[in-house]
C-alpha cells in the first residue's frame, strides 16, 4: 500500500459557458520513499494534479469523481479544517517561484515559526526552525531577515525548509528549479536528494525537463491533455519509451542531436481542453494512428514494469 493513491480522478473547470474536464480519469499511486516525476508540456494538467492532492484547487475547479487516498484516508470528503491539519503534516508543497510565496513584510523566522505545528512553546518552535535552517544549509541569521534580502536560491531553501518542518510523508515539488540558475538549481536538487534520503519522504516532482527528471526520480509519469499516458521507470522511459507521445517528446531533446542535424518535432499543437479530439487525445499528432484510435479511448495496459495507454499494445477498449 502506497503513501498516496489516486483513483479515477476527474477534475473539471467551469468557464463562463461550459464545463471542461482538465484531469480526465487519472489513477496512480506512490509508494514509500518513492520519487516520481510528472512530465509533460504546459497545459497537460501536471500542476492541477498537484493542487487536487493538496485540495488547493481554484474556485472554478471542482473534483467530479475519484478518490485521493493519503495514508489510506480519502481526503476528498475532508473539510477545510481537517485539510489544514493534513497539509504540512502529511503532504506539503514547494512552488515554482519562491519570491511570490513568501510574505515580504514578515521575517523568515516569523513565517517559518508559523508553519510549525503541534503544542510547542515559542522557544521550542524557534529552536525547531533554526534546526531546519541548518538542515537546508542556511546560516542562523537568516531567521531575522526579510525575503527581499535573500537570493532566489536561498528563498527556495527557505520554502523547502517550511515544507519539511513538520516531517510530511509526501512532498510535492512543482518545478522548484525553473526560476533558478543552472548552478543554483544543481545545489537545490542535491539538497532535495539529501533531504529525501534522510527523512525518507516520498516525492512528486513536477517538471518539464525530462533529462532532469531521469536523473532525479525513480519513475516518470508522462501526462498529455489531462491524462497519464505512460508510467515507466526513469531509465526505461528514456531508453525505450512505449507511448508515441513519450517517444516524440524525448526525440525533441536537443542534446540527442549533433550540430546541423534536424530535430524531429511533434507535428501539430497541444489540443485545447474545450475541443479535445475524440478517442485517444494524441491521435491527430500520432504517427502510428489507426482507425480504432479515433473512436475509442485506450485503457491502461501493463507491459513489464510500465503502464501505457495506447492501442499499439493491445485492444482492450472502453466506450468513450
Amino acid at each position: 500500500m502506497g503513501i498516496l493513491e489516486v483513483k479515477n480522478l476527474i477534475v473539471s473547470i467551469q468557464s463562463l459557458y461550459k464545463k471542461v474536464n482538465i484531469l480526465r480519469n487519472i489513477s496512480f499511486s506512490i509508494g514509500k520513499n518513492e520519487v516520481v516525476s510528472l512530465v509533460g508540456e504546459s497545459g497537460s494538467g501536471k500542476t492541477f494534479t498537484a493542487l487536487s492532492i493538496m485540495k488547493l484547487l481554484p474556485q472554478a475547479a471542482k473534483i467530479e469523481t475519484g478518490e485521493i487516498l493519503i495514508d489510506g484516508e480519502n481526503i476528498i470528503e475532508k473539510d477545510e479544517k481537517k485539510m489544514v491539519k493534513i497539509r504540512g503534516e502529511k503532504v506539503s508543497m514547494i512552488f515554482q517561484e519562491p519570491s511570490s510565496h513568501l510574505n515580504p513584510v514578515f521575517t523568515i523566522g516569523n513565517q517559518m515559526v508559523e508553519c510549525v505545528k503541534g503544542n510547542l512553546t515559542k522557544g521550542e518552535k524557534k529552536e525547531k526552525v533554526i534546526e531546519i535552517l541548518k538542515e537546508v544549509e542556511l546560516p542562523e541569521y537568516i531567521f531575522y531577515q526579510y525575503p527581499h534580502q535573500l537570493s532566489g536560491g536561498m528563498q527556495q531553501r527557505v520554502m523547502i525548509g517550511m515544507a519539511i518542518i513538520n516531517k510530511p510523508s509526501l512532498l510535492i515539488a512543482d518545478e522548484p528549479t525553473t526560476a533558478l540558475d543552472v548552478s543554483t538549481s544543481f545545489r537545490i536538487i542535491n539538497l532535495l536528494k539529501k533531504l529525501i534520503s534522510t527523512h525518507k519522504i516520498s516525492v512528486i516532482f513536477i517538471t518539464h525537463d525530462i533529462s532532469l527528471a531521469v536523473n532525479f526520480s525513480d519513475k516518470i509519469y508522462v501526462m498529455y491533455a489531462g491524462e497519464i499516458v505512460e508510467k515507466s521507470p526513469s531509465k526505461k522511459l528514456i531508453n525505450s519509451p512505449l507511448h508515441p507521445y513519450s517517444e516524440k517528446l524525448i526525440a525533441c531533446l536537443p542534446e540527442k542531436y549533433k550540430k546541423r542535424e534536424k530535430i524531429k518535432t511533434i507535428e501539430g499543437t497541444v489540443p485545447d481542453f474545450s475541443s479535445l479530439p475524440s478517442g485517444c487525445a494524441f491521435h491527430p499528432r500520432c504517427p502510428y494512428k489507426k482507425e480504432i484510435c479515433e473512436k475509442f479511448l485506450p485503457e491502461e495496459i501493463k507491459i513489464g514494469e510500465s503502464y501505457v495507454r495506447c492501442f499499439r499494445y493491445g485492444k482492450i477498449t472502453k466506450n468513450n
Partner: protein
Amino acid sequence: MEKLLKTINLKKNFMVKDKYGMVKKINALRGVSFEIDKGETLGIIGESGSGKTTLGKTVIRLIEPDEGKIIFKNIDITHKKENQLRPLRKKFQIIFQNPYKSLNPRMTALEIVMEAIDGSKKEKIEKGEYLLNIVGIKKNKFRSFPYQFSGGERQRIAIARSLSTEPEFIVCDEPTSNLDLSIQAQILNLFMDLKEKFNLTYLFISHDLKVIKFVSDRIGVMFKGRIVEIGKTEEIIKNPENPYVRELFEIEKKQFSI
C-alpha cells in the same frame, strides 16, 4: 573569412537605486571583446546577471556602451548618430525572450511584419505574407492579433518581423526559454533553416547549455560581465580551461546527461 562584427573592450555600467534609495554602480560589462565571422553562430552562455542580455543589446546599440568599440562590417558604429545609424540598423536585428511582450497587441500578424518593409502597399503585403509563410504561420491566421496565437507562433511572428528588413546579423536573446520542449525543437529547426536560406549570422544568447551546444559554431562563456572563455564548441566542451566553465559543464553532465 570576413569579420562581420567585432567588439573591442566593451564596457557598460548601470547606476541603480537599491531598495534603500542608495545609488549603486553595477558593472554589467567589464571589457568584452569578440569577433563573429560571416555565417557563423556564436553562442553566449552564462548565469542570470552575468551580462548576456546587456551584451546582446549593446552590440546593436540598443544600449549605449560607456567604453569600447563596436565595428560592424568594417564600420565603427560606436558613436554614430541615430540618423546615420538608421540605414545600418536594417542589417542587424534582435529577437527577444518573451514573445508575449514583444509584439504590439493592437496590430495583426501581417501588420507587425509589414511595418518595416519599404515599398508600395501591395509589395508590403506580398513580402509580409511571404515571410509569414516561411516561418510557418498558417494563411488563415495572417490577420489575427497576437493574443490569438500560442507562444510558439508568436515567436515565429517575431522571427518573421526580424527578417523583414533583410538583416545579415540577428541577436537571439533566449528565444526558446519561454517555450515548451516540443515547440523549442520546432523553433530551433526554424532558426537553422533560416540561417541557410538567408545566410544569416547569429549571436545566440541562452542559459541552456543543451541548446547552445546544438546551435553554435563557437561558444563564449560569460561570467560577471566578462567573456571568460571563447572557442570552438567541440573544443570548449571537451576541455574547458576556466574553472567556472568546467564547473558549469560538470553540473550539466551530472544533472542532465541521459
